[in-house]
């Protein structure tokens, strides 16, 4: 059997493939972020980037560490399920630096009615009101104290 004399071609071809493979590995390692595949088929650092976002709402546990009187009053009334920042707005900045960042009191004229205005789709047991005949023009907090909205102490409504 005659010896295959053109084997040099195959060696060159193998060299080209090897070069291509090296190039592929180099490019792939360069262009794929290091954290890709750490937790799954995605860039793992994205998790840290997304969770690094600053918090705007401090959470009622943080509020209650200082404002325990208000928290206790609220827990006794009908607004016990309403968290502080639901009405007072996001106050993580105030919680971080209570001295300089002072919260603004919410305006009862719009605040109360966001929840308590009459609406056909609200659950039937939820207290809803026609503001004008009920208040006679006075602001809501003239009679109902927001932290314990019942008209008498211990009143659940």
């Amino acid at each position, binding site marked *: 059997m005659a010896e295959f004399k053109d084997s040099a071609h195959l060696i060159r071809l193998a060299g080209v493939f090897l070069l291509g493979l090296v190039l592929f590995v180099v490019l792939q390692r360069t262009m794929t972020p290091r954290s890709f595949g750490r937790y799954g088929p995605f860039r793992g650092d994205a998790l*840290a980037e997304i969770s690094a976002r600053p918090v705007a709402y401090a959470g009622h546990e943080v509020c209650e560490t200082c404002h325990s009187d208000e928290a206790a009053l609220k827990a006794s009334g009908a607004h016990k399920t309403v968290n502080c920042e639901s009405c007072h707005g996001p106050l993580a900045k105030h919680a971080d630096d209570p001295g300089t960042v002072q919260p603004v009191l919410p305006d009862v004229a719009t605040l109360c009615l966001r929840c308590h205005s009459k609406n056909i789709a609200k659950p039937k047991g939820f207290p809803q009101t026609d503001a004008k005949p009920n208040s006679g023009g006075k602001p809501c907090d003239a009679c109902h104290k927001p932290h314990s909205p019942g008209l008498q102490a211990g009143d659940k409504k």
Partner: protein
Amino acid sequence: MTLNRRQILLLLPAATVAWEYVLAGNPDESPNYKMSEHWWGMLIDITKCIGCGSCVRACAMENDVPEGYFRTWIERYHVSDWHIEAPEVDSPNGGKDGFPPGKEEGGKNFFVPKMCNHCVDSPCSQVCPVGATFHTPDGVVLVDYNYCLGCRYCIQACPYGCRFFHPKKHTADKCTLCYHRITKGLTTACCEACPTGARQLADLKNPNDPIHAFLKTHSVQVLKPHLATGSKLYYNSLDGSVR
């Protein structure tokens, strides 16, 4: 020292690996949070929702959601008592400013808060051509804003309409289940702001989470169960007319 071509070729891969480690650095991670210990979902109690829009406003303030776009929103359903398959739905400005009183027309009326369902088998992540939408090991569907091309395929794929194209970032955007909050041990902004407890963040891997007792004792449903998306947004008292 002189290098020939062969030596340069041999050195390149090693240099690449070294360069990668120098540049990448280590990401900041929440130190006390273990992803493997959580499996997040949310409970939405339709019998408690009053349509006040607190969740929509809180979400916008917490996450800088641009005006006119919504990561969560509230729909009001009016279902007549003669054609339950054709409900009338309104959602003025996503319910952000509350709802007008509505007309007495008979039938039933209720609010349905909506947001990303954080599906286990989410259509949005399946269609993403670059792997920018992904599932975290704790069950949250997120968007990698550096990887997203802005092709909008996922926005069309989501059967719940929960995604939008961010006008400034020029990427797809959606609810992150306040991932920056839940990894710090806080609840989401919408749950924090909900005055009636209609929304409750649920950790299904935590045996002490009240979700387990709730699921045992209530009629709970997910949206579009026939699509088998594996939604983790559990609706209590969900009407069949809700789409």
